């Protein structure tokens, strides 16, 4: 019965999703390029560290995990625009859930792979 008369308004609502304002209009194309270079550098550091065995095995694993966390941050801030939002910040909810579940998987996997060491 009731149909919207303000079509122009609606089609911009669709446009916003389909054509999100290209971020380089706001920051210039530099931001993604910096992010791209940073992520490559991080990858090269981990490759270099492992190929040259710069420290003990445990140290290497810790180093790689730390670099991975930094990599996540770069992805989120340089490419995924986690700080930008029009309308409700749904992505923050999903990000929170994602972090909770990642924590559950990491902790759960470590717990499972101890194979009962905690019981003995």
């Amino acid at each position, binding site marked *: *019965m009731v149909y*919207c008369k303000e079509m122009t308004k609606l089609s911009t609502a669709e446009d916003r*999703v389909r054509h999100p304002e290209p971020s380089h209009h706001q920051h210039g194309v530099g931001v993604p390029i910096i992010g791209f270079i940073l992520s490559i550098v991080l990858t090269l550091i981990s490759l270099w560290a492992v190929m040259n065995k710069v420290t003990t095995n445990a140290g290497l694993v810790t180093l790689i995990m730390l670099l991975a966390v930094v990599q996540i941050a770069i992805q989120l801030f340089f490419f995924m625009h986690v700080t930008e939002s029009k309308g409700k910040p749904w992505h923050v909810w999903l990000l929170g859930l994602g972090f909770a579940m990642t924590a559950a998987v990491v902790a759960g996997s470590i717990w499972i*792979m101890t194979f*009962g060491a905690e019981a003995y």
Partner: protein
Amino acid sequence: MPASVTNFATHFFVLGDPLIYGADASIVLVTLAILFVLTYFKKWGWLWREWLTTVDHKKIGIMYLIAALLMFFRGGVDAILMRTQLVWPGMHFLQSEHYNEIFTTHGTIMILFMAMPFIFAMFNIAVPLQIGARDVAFPYLNAISFWMFFFGAMLLNLSFVIGGSPDAGWVSYPPLAGPEYSIGPGENFYLLALQISGIGSMGTGINFFVTILKMRAPGMTLMRMPLFCWSVLAASILIILAFPALTAALALLLFDRLAGSHFFTMLAGGNPMMYINLFWVWGHPEVYIVVLPAFGIFSEVVATFSRKRTFGYASMVASLMTIVVLSYLVWAHHFFTMGAGPGVNSFFALASMIIGIPTGVKVFNWLFTMYRGRIRMTAPMLWTVGFIPNFVIGGATGVMLASAPTDYQYHNSYFLIAHFHQVLIGGVVYGMLAGMYYWWPKMFGHMLNERWARHAFWWFNIGFYVCFMPQYLVGLMGMTRRIYDYPGDMGWNTLNLVSTIGAYMMGIGFILLVLDVVYSIFYGERDKTGDPWDGRTLEWSLPSPAPHYNFARIPIVTARDAWWIMKEARRGDLTDVSTTEGVESVRVTQSKQTAPQSLKQSGPLQPIHMPKDSGRPFVLSVCFFIFGWGLVFQWYWMAIPGFLGILASLLARSFEKETSYHIPVEEIEKTEAAYGRL
């Protein structure tokens, strides 16, 4: 001919098995037939313009549906072959190796290439229409998702006749699936096919998550959404969070096989059990990914055919979201016997049992929705009602399996097989078939024949119990899964015989379903109203099939069951009118035939902004197929061009400016007038 060539040909074309020669012949014949028909009727241009390049969610949904039904057939044939081999001890129908290949492809195809495209078909067909949108948020990505799935499925299916099927089970555990024990390309086919179609699944998950959150019609708050959309939102969250685990596990196993790394080997610091862990981090959410949309469909069907609003809407939403969180905390129940500590097993056993609570809430809500409703036993409702006892039995045996100590008895027995087929067939397949019957008129503009549908349902439903109830028993008697033969003196013979009879009955049910489709294409009742079921949600406010822009004017939603409320309001208006003279014309307006007439809307039409079709998703996916094929056989001369093709497609998209166009008002007017809605 040199020996090396003969040897290559023997393995490449999998020589020596009559069943495979049969498959070869049928593939060649079907391909030739398709090519001939397309050329003879000059349909190549039509195929390219209307289907291969489309970004329309309705057409993509139809393609998903066709692919899912074809894969259902292939997986079903695998099942029939297995049951034929097991009908009696000492059968010489399949060789042991061939049996291994068939149970592997049966599982892989049914989960990843039947259930997944089937739910995606339903996502695509219903979600944008239900939330009052004109397409999904990312139509181009949607087309990529479909073609990635399609070529992934092709890659796996071709393995049967070229190179040899994977044969390490659908879970593909190392070390059996590792380089030492699975020689040849079979496992590579599995890994790359899943990886390629997994990219597509991930795309669909993101797409529908954004679509549902961002593209709802004005006034449609989250708590006014149809429950199917809620279930799709839940499944999309699970896809986004679960699929990366599978991607990681498969990629690492691929490195082990192709690059000689040691992630999952027994030596050199690897640990094959980590693969099992990662696989089920994805694998358990996966069963909820496929079953939650089925729950959503049941909610829609039950409300429509009971002529009542869903009982306990808020609790339905709450239970869906609870399942999303809980389903992520239960994965270790798939390997209680792997040797984790008692603390681990207790935690995961408890979490698995808790998940029965929100599921139980949903079952009771469906029952209470039916309670004192005006129930119409149509085909979608039959599948829904058939689902409930099925799922209750499957759920109860699931709680039995969730108990870690007793699971040591049930593990890998036919009891487990019967349990998960009961929830996956009884839940997912019944749900998808209910959805298919329900939305068929919306997709194709005609109904499926109810008489055929009832026959198909009863053959399938009775066949299901005949097939799987004996398997519970034979499982408790000690029969383990994945055996191609068994001793004749174990007391399993009769039960296996009965089970095989049931499998054939389900096969007859499927054939009847296909015949129903074929019959109805020619003789099915045409749906002129767009609302053949007297539906409650917005998709039924549109003509069938919906015009490609869906809504000429975006509806404004004021309540849950938006279309039902609109119809109620109109009935209210008409009652007032009927006191005056035009009673006759009012009766006509009220009847179903002319219901859409009263939808004549005020307000001028506006040009509609739509995405352009593109052939690139298809080309990109072909490149992925070439890349995947090259990696399967480690033919890098083939993989590298494929990879470059992928890069070129991505780059070309980045520099594309004109990706959308506007439909002019005149064209909308013409289309709407053709539907009699102007």
